[in-house]
């Protein structure tokens, strides 16, 4: 259902908003950023790879907006100069020239607002990805699973590492208090878990254990939590 919603979004932006660059004009309402937001909306539900193509397209569109904006402003400034020149001779711009001046500035406004809009879309996109990455640190720990790692850019990987390191140093300041564990006080410090993947020999806080697939073991809750969050174990309640 989520995917469906995203598809309609993409369709909506694709069919009615087309850039006519060959005509050297921008269709009103064109915003590639909107597509990106469509993607971003989707990202929130299932983590998705960076849409660098779309991202580049938005930047490109911004560049063309800037070009248009520049030329429009130049033209209106020329008109304003004529206006001042006329003023010194006690003359005014005639009606058509006044109209032209207004038309230049309203065209420039359209490009200006399109730029602001694209900026907002880009910022929101990056911001939401960063938010997801920050949450990853809290839920799955310091090591990224492969399926997520291939979907994020190198800058985002760097951000993940730094955020994890910051969290780690904060927790070590608090006498190694692990803030990422479950907030509900446990009934029992030990829980029964089933191992779903071959983890191998690991050193846990109280002993070392061989965690082979399908094994059912008692572990300290704090040791097991991370593995459960990562999906390599499941809790057994009976």
């Amino acid at each position: 259902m989520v995917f469906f919603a995203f598809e309609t979004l993409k369709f909506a932006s694709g069919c009615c908003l087309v850039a006519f660059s060959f005509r050297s004009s921008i269709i009103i309402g064109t915003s590639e950023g909107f597509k990106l937001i469509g993607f971003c909306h989707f990202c929130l539900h299932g983590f998705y790879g960076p849409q660098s193509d779309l991202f580049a397209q938005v930047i490109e569109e911004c560049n063309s907006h800037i070009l248009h904006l520049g030329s429009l402003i130049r033209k209106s400034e020329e008109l304003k100069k004529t206006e001042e020149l006329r003023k010194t001779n006690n003359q005014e711009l005639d009606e058509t020239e006044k109209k032209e001046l207004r038309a230049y500035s309203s065209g420039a406004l359209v490009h200006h607002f399109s730029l602001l809009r694209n900026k907002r879309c880009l910022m929101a996109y990056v911001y939401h990805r960063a938010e997801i990455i920050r949450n990853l640190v809290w839920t799955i720990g310091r090591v990224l699973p492969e399926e997520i790692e291939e979907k994020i850019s190198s800058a985002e990987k760097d951000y993940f590492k730094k955020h994890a390191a910051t969290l780690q140093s904060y927790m070590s300041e608090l006498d190694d208090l692990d803030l990422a564990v479950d907030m509900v006080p446990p009934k029992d410090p030990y829980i029964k878990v089933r191992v779903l993947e071959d983890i191998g020999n690991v050193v846990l806080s109280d002993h070392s254990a061989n965690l082979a697939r399908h094994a059912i073991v008692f572990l300290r809750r704090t040791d097991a939590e991370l593995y459960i969050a990562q999906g390599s174990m499941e809790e057994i309640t009976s």
Partner: protein
Amino acid sequence: MANYYDIDDILAEEEMVPAIFQESAYGVGLLESSDDTNMVEAGSKAELPFWLSCDLHGRGVISIDLPPWFRRDSRTRKEIGADAAHVDLRSRCQYFYELGLKIAPLVGDKTIGPFLLVAFQTRYKEVLVKAHTATPAVAPKYLTLLTNEEAKLYEVGQSSTAAFKKWRMGGPRLQKASILGRKRKPIK
């Protein structure tokens, strides 16, 4: 002002609003027009996204009109007056309430606020009832009527019902551990 990074707010502002150009504008073109003049004449009509029309309206470049579903004697208004809970708002505007809130001060129509309030109140009641009782087989059909905001409320309602059921089923297991728990009636 909503959060700058709020995706729902961004999407809500993408909704199209009918507008008429009061001034001509150079350097832009309308998608429907076939001429190559590279300008928009004053007086031409266009559907613009809200984010653009809001600011252009503020500067007097365009004048905006209400989308059909907010107009005074529109069918949507009559339908909502008759039976708000079963009106298909999703196909009209996914961000019905958000857009209404944003557009009302711009056009100065004082009836939009009360209209939205009545629509939301009656629909919210129905959303809540459906969220707590509807079986999964019925739900998808009902969801196609709701705006995004309402669909979110519906999902929250459903997840709270699910959480309650989980808590109720898990209840006896936890209670057995304590001695007091046995005296209580087991909940089925």
